[in-house]
C-alpha cells in the first residue's frame, strides 16, 4: 500500500477532522445560548444555519478541487488534512511546491520518498501556523481597540452605520476588484470576459431574488437567495463555456 494513504495517515486525518468539528460545535453551542439570552429569535438562528450551510457547499467543492490537484503528488490524505485545518486554496499549493523545488521535483510528479513527504508536511504546517501563535496575544487587543473605536463612532448613529457598511464594502470590493482586474498565480481564472460575466450575473440574480423576497414577502426564500444567486452565476459560467465563442471565453486582460 502507498505509504501516503496508509492507515496511520487516515488515523491522523480522523483526529484532525474530529478536532475541527468538536471546536465548531463548542463555539456554536456557546453562541446559541448567548443568542437566546440576547433575545435573538429561533427563526433568525435557524435561517443563519441554513443559509450558512448552503452557502458553503460550492466553495467547499472548490476546496475539494485543490485536494484533488495536490493528491496526484502527495496522495489524498495529507492535502485533505491540511485543507481541513488552517489551510487555504492558494497557500498549500505554494508551500508544497516550494519544498518540492528544493528536491528538484514538481507537484506533477508523485512523491515517493517518505523523507520528502515529511518535509512537505513540516513546511505546510510551519508556514501556516503563525496565526495560531498570534491570536492568543493579538485577538483580544484588536477586538477591544477596534470595538471601542466603532462604539465611540456609534455615538453618532449615522457615522456608525456608514463606517459599519464601509468596512463590509471594503472587504467585498477587494474580491470585486480581483474579478474585474486580478490575476491568479497559476493563470487559471484570471480576470476577463468570464469573470466579469459571472460577477454581473450573480449581482443580477441576487438583486432579482431580493426584490422578489421583498415584494411577495417570501421569508422562506430569503436564506436561499444568496446561495441560489451564487449557483445561478456558476451555471452561467458553464453555459458561457459551452456556447460562447472560444475567443471570448478565453479572453483575459492579462493575455
Amino acid at each position: 500500500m502507498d505509504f501516503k494513504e496508509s492507515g496511520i495517515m487516515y488515523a491522523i486525518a480522523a483526529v484532525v477532522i474530529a478536532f475541527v468539528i468538536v471546536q465548531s460545535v463548542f463555539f456554536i453551542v456557546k453562541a446559541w445560548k448567548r443568542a437566546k439570552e440576547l433575545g435573538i429569535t429561533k427563526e433568525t438562528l435557524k435561517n443563519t444555519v441554513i443559509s450558512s450551510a448552503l452557502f458553503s457547499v460550492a466553495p467547499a467543492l472548490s476546496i475539494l478541487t485543490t485536494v484533488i490537484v495536490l493528491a496526484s503528488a502527495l496522495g489524498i490524505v495529507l492535502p485533505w488534512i491540511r485543507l481541513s485545518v488552517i489551510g487555504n486554496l492558494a497557500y498549500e499549493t505554494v508551500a508544497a511546491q516550494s519544498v518540492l523545488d528544493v528536491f528538484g521535483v514538481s507537484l506533477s510528479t508523485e512523491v515517493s520518498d517518505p523523507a520528502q513527504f515529511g518535509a512537505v508536511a513540516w513546511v505546510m504546517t510551519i508556514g501556516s501556523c503563525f496565526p495560531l501563535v498570534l491570536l492568543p496575544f493579538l485577538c483580544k487587543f484588536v477586538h477591544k481597540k477596534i470595538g471601542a473605536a466603532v462604539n465611540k463612532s456609534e455615538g453618532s448613529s449615522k457615522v456608525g452605520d456608514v463606517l459599519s457598511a464601509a468596512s463590509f464594502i471594503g472587504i467585498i470590493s477587494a474580491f470585486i476588484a480581483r474579478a474585474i482586474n486580478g490575476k491568479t498565480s497559476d493563470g487559471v481564472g484570471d480576470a476577463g470576459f468570464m469573470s466579469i460575466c459571472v460577477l454581473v450575473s450573480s449581482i443580477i440574480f441576487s438583486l432579482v431574488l431580493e426584490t422578489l423576497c421583498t415584494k411577495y414577502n417570501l421569508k422562506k426564500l430569503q436564506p436561499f437567495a444568496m446561495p441560489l444567486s451564487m449557483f445561478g452565476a456558476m451555471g452561467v459560467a458553464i453555459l458561457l463555456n459551452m456556447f460562447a465563442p472560444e475567443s471570448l471565453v478565453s479572453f483575459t486582460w492579462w493575455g
Partner: protein
Amino acid sequence: MKKNKLTERTYFDKVHTWGRIWSVTALAVLVAVPVSICLYFNVWPAAQDVFKALIKVIPLYWGTAVIEVITYTPMLGAGGTYLSFVTGNISNLKLPAGLNAMENAKVRANSEEGEVISTIAIGVSAITTTVIIAVGVLLFSPVLPYLTNPDSVFAPAFTYVLPALFGALGAGYFKKNWKIAIFPIVIGCLVLVFAPTLVVGTLLFITIVAAMLGAMLLLKLKWI
C-alpha cells in the same frame, strides 16, 4: 444598563479565554501531524531542506498573517476569528459566510448580536466544509477528477466560484451604498494594475482602509 454592559464584557472575555485555549490546542494538533508522520515512518527531513523552502514561504505568509488577524478580527467577531483561523479558508469561505449571516440577521459586526450570529454562521460553515471534503475524499475521490479537471463541463463553475460568491454577497450592499462602493473598487483595481497577483489579505486591508476613508469624506461633504 450597567448590568447589561457587565454581562456583555463577561461574555466577550469568556470567548477570548475559550479562543486562546482552542488556539493553543489547535497548534499542538497541527504540529502533531508532521511529528506523527516522521515518527511513524521514521524519517526526519534535513533541517536545511525544510529551511530552504520555509524561507520562500514565511516572509509572505507570516507577514500576511499579521495583516489578516488585524483585518478579519473586527469583521468576524472574537468567536468567529478564533474558529476561522483554525479551520482556514477565511477569505473564500468563512468571511463571506459571517458577513452574509450578519446582513440577513440585520446585526452589526461589532455588536454582541453580530458576534453570536457570526460565530454560528462560521461554525456551521466549518462543519459543512469539513463534512463535504471528508465525504468527497472518502466516497467520491475516484470520480471527482472527472468533475473538476479542466476539460470537465463543470470546471468553469469552480474556476469562477469567487466572483459568483462575492457578486451575490455584494449586490445588496452596493445597491444601498453605491456611493461608498465606487472608491474602494477603483482603488482595488488600480492596485491590481501594478500588483496583479497581490495576496488577498493585503488587498483587503487596502480596500477596507479606502472604503472607510472614502465614506468619511462623503460624510464630511454631506453626500451621504
